C-alpha cells in the first residue's frame, strides 16, 4: 500500500463539510487546509451548497480531479458508503476522523469498512482519529489553527493511538524545541496500524527518530512491531499507557504470573532496541536527545559544571539510570588543572564530576570539555551551566557546541531558565546540542542515547 497520499497529498476531499455549521469538524479541516496548506481542497456534502464562496460537491465522482486523500468527518453510519465511493473513485487513501465504531461497540460497522478496504487494498487511517499533520504540507486535525501549539519542523515523527496525547505532546515538543517531521493519529487502527507506520517512517528521509504512544497491540502485532523495529537503523521510542494491572487473572504457572503483559511488552521492545519512555517527561527528553544524536553510546558520561551540588545530583541520576561516570585519572587532572584560569586552579575539583566553582569562566569550560572529549574514556558529556555566574557569558553555548562537533562527542546541556538565557540556549540548540531545563532531564537525554542496549 502506498501511504504517501496520507502525508503529502496534492488534492484532498473533505466529507461532511456543512454549508450552515462552520464549527463542524469537517469545516475546520476544510478551512485550515484550503487557507494554509499547499493542497487543493474540495468539500463534499450530498446536499450541495457553498462554503467560503466555493461549491460543495455532492459526491466524489463530481469532483473534477483525482483525489489523493479523502478526509471523512461524517456520522459513522455514512462512512461505509463513503469508503466505497473512495474505492470506486480511485482516491489514494483516507483518514476516517469519525468516531462511533469499535470504541462504542459498533464492531459491525468497523468490520464492514475493514473488509471493503482490505479487498480493494485501500489504505485508511482510523476510524476515531485525527489523521495526519505534516508541517507545511497538511493538517487534518479538526482543531482550529489558532488553538494549536505547533512545534517547528524537525526530524521526529510521532504516531499516537490517542489524539489527545498527540496534540499535547506536540505542545511539549514546541516548549522544548523538538522539531517534528510528521504526526499521525491512528485511532482504532482498523487497517493501518503501528507496524505500517513504522515501515513507512523508517523509509521516510525526513524522519530520523520514530516515536509511538501505544495503549495496546493487537494479536501478534507486538511481535511484528518488535521484529520490524530490530531491523530499523533509526532510533525508536515507545511510551506505553495501560500498565497498571487490571485485576489478577488466575494463572496456572510461575511463568504466566511473572511474564505478564506489561513485563513481556517491556522485555520484547528492549530486546529489539526500542527505547521505552516511562512517562511524558522522559518521552520529550528522549525525543529531543535522539533527534540530535542517532548513534548509540555505551553510557560513559563526563560531567562538567560550576556547582558541586549540580554535579552530585547529575551523578546520582546517572547511577539511577544505569549510566557510568568514570573517574578522571590523576595525570589527566594535572594537565587539566594547568589549563585553568589562575583564580580557580587551586579550588576546582577535577574528578568526575568536574566542579569548576562559581569563579569559572568560558575558557575553563572550553578547556575541560575538550579534555573530556580527548580522553577517549567518555562517549557523552553533560554540561550543567549556571549562567547567573558572572564569569559565564551567553556565547558559551555555541563555543561548547563547536567543541562537541569537532571531537564528534555528544554534548547535552542543562540551563535552568530557557527564556532568560535564550541566547545561550540557542547557541546550543541551533548547533544541534539538546538543552534541558532540569538536571534529571539532561541525564535522561544521555540515557536515551544508550538506545536500550542489553547489558
Amino acid at each position, binding site marked *: 500500500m502506498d501511504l504517501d497520499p496520507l502525508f503529502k497529498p496534492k488534492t484532498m476531499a473533505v466529507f461532511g463539510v456543512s454549508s450552515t455549521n462552520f464549527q463542524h469538524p469537517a469545516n475546520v479541516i476544510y478551512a485550515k487546509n484550503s487557507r494554509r496548506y499547499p493542497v487543493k481542497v474540495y468539500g463534499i456534502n450530498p446536499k450541495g451548497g457553498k462554503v467560503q464562496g466555493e461549491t460543495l460537491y455532492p459526491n466524489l465522482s463530481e469532483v473534477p480531479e483525482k483525489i489523493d486523500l479523502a478526509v471523512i468527518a461524517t456520522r459513522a453510519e455514512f462512512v461505509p458508503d463513503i469508503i466505497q465511493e473512495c474505492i470506486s473513485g480511485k482516491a489514494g487513501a483516507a483518514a476516517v476522523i469519525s468516531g462511533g465504531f469499535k470504541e462504542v461497540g459498533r464492531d459491525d460497522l468497523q468490520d464492514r469498512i475493514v473488509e471493503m478496504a482490505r479487498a480493494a487494498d485501500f489504505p485508511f487511517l482510523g476510524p476515531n482519529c485525527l489523521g495526519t499533520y505534516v508541517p507545511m504540507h497538511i493538517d487534518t486535525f479538526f482543531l482550529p489553527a489558532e488553538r494549536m501549539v505547533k512545534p517547528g519542523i524537525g526530524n521526529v515523527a510521532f504516531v499516537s493511538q490517542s489524539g489527545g496525547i498527540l496534540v499535547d505532546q506536540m505542545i511539549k515538543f514546541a516548549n522544548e524545541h523538538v522539531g517534528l517531521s510528521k504526526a499521525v493519529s491512528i485511532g482504532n487502527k482498523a487497517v493501518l496500524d503501528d507496524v505500517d507506520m513504522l515501515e513507512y517512517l523508517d523509509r521516510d528521509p525526513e524522519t530520523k527518530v520514530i516515536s509511538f504512544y501505544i495503549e*495496546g*497491540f*493487537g*494479536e*501478534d*502485532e*507486538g*511481535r511484528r512491531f*518488535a521484529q520490524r523495529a530490530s531491523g530499523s537503523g533509526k532510533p525508536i521510542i515507545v511510551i506505553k499507557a495501560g500498565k497498571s494491572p487490571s485485576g489478577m487473572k488466575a*494463572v*496456572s*504457572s*510461575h*511463568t*504466566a*504470573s*511473572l*511474564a505478564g*503483559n506489561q*513485563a*513481556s*511488552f517491556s*522485555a*520484547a521492545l528492549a*530486546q*529489539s532496541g526500542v527505547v521505552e519512555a516511562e512517562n511524558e517527561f522522559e518521552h520529550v527528553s528522549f525525543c529531543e536527545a535522539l533527534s540530535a544524536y542517532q548513534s548509540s553510546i555505551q553510557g560513559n558520561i563526563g560531567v562538567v559544571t560550576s556547582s558541586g551540588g549540580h554535579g552530585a545530583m547529575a551523578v546520582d541520576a546517572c547511577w539511577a539510570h544505569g549510566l557510568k561516570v568514570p573517574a578522571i585519572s590523576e595525570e589527566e587532572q594535572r594537565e587539566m588543572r594547568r589549563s585553568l584560569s589562575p583564580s580557580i586552579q587551586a579550588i576546582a575539583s577535577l574528578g568526575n564530576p568536574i566542579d569548576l566553582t562559581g569563579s569559572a569562566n568560558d575558557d575553563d569550560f572550553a578547556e575541560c570539555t575538550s579534555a573530556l572529549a580527548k580522553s577517549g574514556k567518555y562517549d557523552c558529556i553533560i554540561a550543567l551551566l549556571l549562567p547567573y555566574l558572572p564569569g559565564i557569558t551567553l556565547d558559551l553555548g555555541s563555543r561548547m557546541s563547536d567543541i562537541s562537533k569537532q571531537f564528534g562527542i555528544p554534548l547535552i546541556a542543562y540551563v535552568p531558565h530557557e527564556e532568560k538565557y535564550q541566547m545561550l540556549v540557542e547557541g546550543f540548540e541551533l548547533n544541534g546540542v539538546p538543552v534541558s531545563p532540569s538536571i534529571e532531564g539532561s541525564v535522561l537525554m544521555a540515557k536515551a542515547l544508550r538506545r536500550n542496549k*542489553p*547489558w
Partner: protein
Amino acid sequence: MVEDKQAISRIISRSSARGWVLEPDAEHIMALEGIPVPRYKVVTTHEEAVSAAREIGYPVVAKVVSPDVLHKTEVHGVEIGIDNDEKLIEAFNRFASIRGFTGMLIEEMVQGLELILGAQRDVQFGPMILLGMGGTGVEIYQDVALRMAPLKPSDVSSMVNSLKGHKLLEGYRGSEPVNMEKLTNVVLAFSGFIMDFEDSIESVDVNPLKCSSQDCVAVDTRIILSKKAQAT
C-alpha cells in the same frame, strides 16, 4: 529429529483433553528435545518402586503421578531425599491416597543451583522465554529475565547478566560456577521446542532447572497446553 518431533506431537495430542502434560511425559518431551533430565522411572507397585529406586540409586526423589494434580507440592505429592526402601514405601502409600493417583515417579537426586526456565504465549508478542532464579520462591523474588522467542546465544548471556543473582551463577564465595555452555544449549533447545510447538503451548515451567559446573538438568517440567491444542 523428525521422529522426535512426531513423538512430541503424539504426547501433546493425547494430553490435549486434560489441558496439560503429565510430568513423566513432560520429562520425556524435554529429553526428546535434547534437554538433560534426571534418570527416572514410573512405578505402580511397591515391588516396582523398590527395584526402580535401587537401580537409580538412593537417595531418590518421589513424585505423585495424577491427572488430577497439576501442582504436586500443594498436595504434598513430592518427597525428596528418600534414602531407603522403608521411606520409599511410606511415600508410595501416602501418594496412593492422593486424588487421581495413577503411579509414582522415582527420580535421581540432582545437585545444582535452582533456576527457572519458562515460556508463556503472549497475545501481543507470541512466545516469550523466561530465565531466572528458580525454586519455590520464584514469585516472591521475581528475579527473572524475559525475551521474545526465538533466542540467540547472545540473548542467553544477556538474560543471565541482567539477573540480580547472576553472581551466584558465576560461582559465589567458593561455589562452582554454572556451566554456561550447557545452560546456553538447554535454553536454546527449549526456545526451539517452544517455537516448533507455539500453537499448542500456553505456558511451560521448568522449575527447578538445576545447574552445576557439570550440567543443567530439567528436574521438574510443567507444560500447559493452549486452547487451540485442547480443541483438536
